């Protein structure tokens, strides 16, 4: 791994250099919301700082968009022609947070096991992630309980580049060859980092980890144990389910959730099959054509979603829990039963 220093005043020149050969997606304010938008020159440095600022949508939207066309078909006599839409753009995602990056790695594992999903991978392979570490978490953050942040682990984690906010400059930790190529875009902007910068980085991470409020979610491991050993009563799940509105918001904003549905359009001579985010909270998610629904009860669906995310079996299967502690489910849930509320309830 190489370490450099990039002065904040040089960031826009770096972006300019990068934008010559690929798209640069940086956090941008659009009508008070934060989106990842293509940037050619000027990056909003307020959104690229140590204070955690999250776009409403998780970065999974870049690899698994809310909806995408799988293929178009055209009828030609008695025959069909199927075409798959192109997707070739390479992009640098500048300023993605550790929780989102951890979410992407989670999706990477899922989207290549058993069968590899080429729609996912052709976007993913063209993305280079420049993670912005969080020196200062904000209200809903609990990544520290879920191994989702606030910094990526420089030793254990594989990543392209991690930026650490050192006030007037960034520490640039570069670990992959893709990351190295980004440095090469304008190498003069990058000075080799000295050991004191590394010490500052370690101190910042320590301080960040300690600045999370004593939080219900530090009881994450208790919740996981309880779920796995079936110690949670059906009444608890029913009670929690009563607050759930089946809106699907938690699954859509979660960096680790990946379920999708498929839609079909038929306009006479042509049509399209497309996929879109779906949620296991929906009552029709498991309903079979006969009308039989194995998860017809809301409490059952609610339980299954948390079982899936937190249970030890999930841990056994995929290596870590399906939550990175980004806190988006707290924002998105009308019933106030996001992850921390549930974890606290399960602990009791």
């Amino acid at each position: 791994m190489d370490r450099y220093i990039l002065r904040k005043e040089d960031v826009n020149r770096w972006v300019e250099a990068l934008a010559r050969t690929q798209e640069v997606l940086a956090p941008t304010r659009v009508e008070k919301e934060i989106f990842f938008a293509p940037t050619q020159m000027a990056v909003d440095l307020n959104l690229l700082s140590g204070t955690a600022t999250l776009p409403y949508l998780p970065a999974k939207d870049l690899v698994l968009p809310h909806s995408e066309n799988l293929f178009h078909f055209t009828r030609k006599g008695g025959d069909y022609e199927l075409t798959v839409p192109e997707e070739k753009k390479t992009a640098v995602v500048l300023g993605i947070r550790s929780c989102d990056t951890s979410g992407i790695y989670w999706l990477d594992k899922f989207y290549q096991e058993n069968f590899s999903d080429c729609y996912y991978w052709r976007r993913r392979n063209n993305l280079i992630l420049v993670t912005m570490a969080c020196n200062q978490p904000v209200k809903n953050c609990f990544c520290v309980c879920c191994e989702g942040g606030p910094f990526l682990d420089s030793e254990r984690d594989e990543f392209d580049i991690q930026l650490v906010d050192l006030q007037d400059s960034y520490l640039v930790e570069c670990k992959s060859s893709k990351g190295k190529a980004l440095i090469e875009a304008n190498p003069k902007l990058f000075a080799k980092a000295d050991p004191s910068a590394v010490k500052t980085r370690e101190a910042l991470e320590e301080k960040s980890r300690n600045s999370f409020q004593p939080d219900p979610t530090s009881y994450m491991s208790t919740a996981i144990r309880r779920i796995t050993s079936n110690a949670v009563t059906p009444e608890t799940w029913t009670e929690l389910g009563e607050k759930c509105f089946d809106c699907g918001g938690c699954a859509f904003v979660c960096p680790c959730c990946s379920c999708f549905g498929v839609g079909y359009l038929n306009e006479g001579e042509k049509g399209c099959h497309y996929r879109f985010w779906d949620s296991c909270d929906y009552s029709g998610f498991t309903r079979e054509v006969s009308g039989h629904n194995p998860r017809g009860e809301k409490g059952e669906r609610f339980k299954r979603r948390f079982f899936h995310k937190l249970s030890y079996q999930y841990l056994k299967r995929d290596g870590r829990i399906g939550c990175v502690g980004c806190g988006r489910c707290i924002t998105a849930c009308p019933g106030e039963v996001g992850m921390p509320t549930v974890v606290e309830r399960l602990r009791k």
Partner: protein
Amino acid sequence: MSNIYLPNLARIIKIQDETYDTKTFEFEFADPKVKQAFKFRSGQFLEISALGVGEAPFGLASNPNRPETFRVTLRAVGAVTWALHQKKIGDLVGIRGPFGNGFPFDEYKGKNIIFVGGGIGLPPLRSLIEPMLDARSAFKDFLILYGARTPADQVYQDRLKEWEKMSEIRFGMTVDVGDANWKGNVGVVTTLFPKCNLIVENTVVFVCGPPIMIRFAIMELSKLGFKPENIVSTLERYMKCGVGKCGHCAIGHKYVCVDGPVFNYKEIGKLPEKS
């Protein structure tokens, strides 16, 4: 990287009416290269699409030893199956697959075999029965039991007659309710159990049919001493992608489309949800 969501086109080459709402379709891939490369295992399924209308999973019902063409049997119950039922010989459909774990054929060699099929549960079992009959000598006692609601609800009636006549297998048939011409057994399929001398030792039983039939069959089989790990079935769930990604068929940490649909009852017992 191959595109797991892009179907290959296959033409309908034969349509057989089985019952008033069930048809068997025989398909052949339009592209000769795809046809040449196509192979499947018993118990696997295909995702068949009526383009622009929808896609659904269907168990393969033909012999994997002869994969140049392949058959599925489907009942018209929803938008996709209705659209497929309207199609004619020569029409094209989309095919993705084969998916699923399939039956571990070689594990059954040297054992006694019992098939218990109910109604439209026979088609996926047939994809295992036929290759087993091709290799009959690899198996010991061979018993097929089939039950349907009425004689008109039986599928594969021609093949049933042939099985009845085969000397190398034992065969029993029953209907819940007979008709004027029915001379055979009347009663649910479990009523055949005491009449057919089921051998418990070193036997694997394959059960497939409507949920209520499966439930009673398992009950009776357990009473007779069959162990759950020797009773095998195919689980049904609402499926969309067939490749373990969309999440619809997940039960606990298993995906029915990847870890199944073939499960034995010991595994099913460990699943956190009743089907």
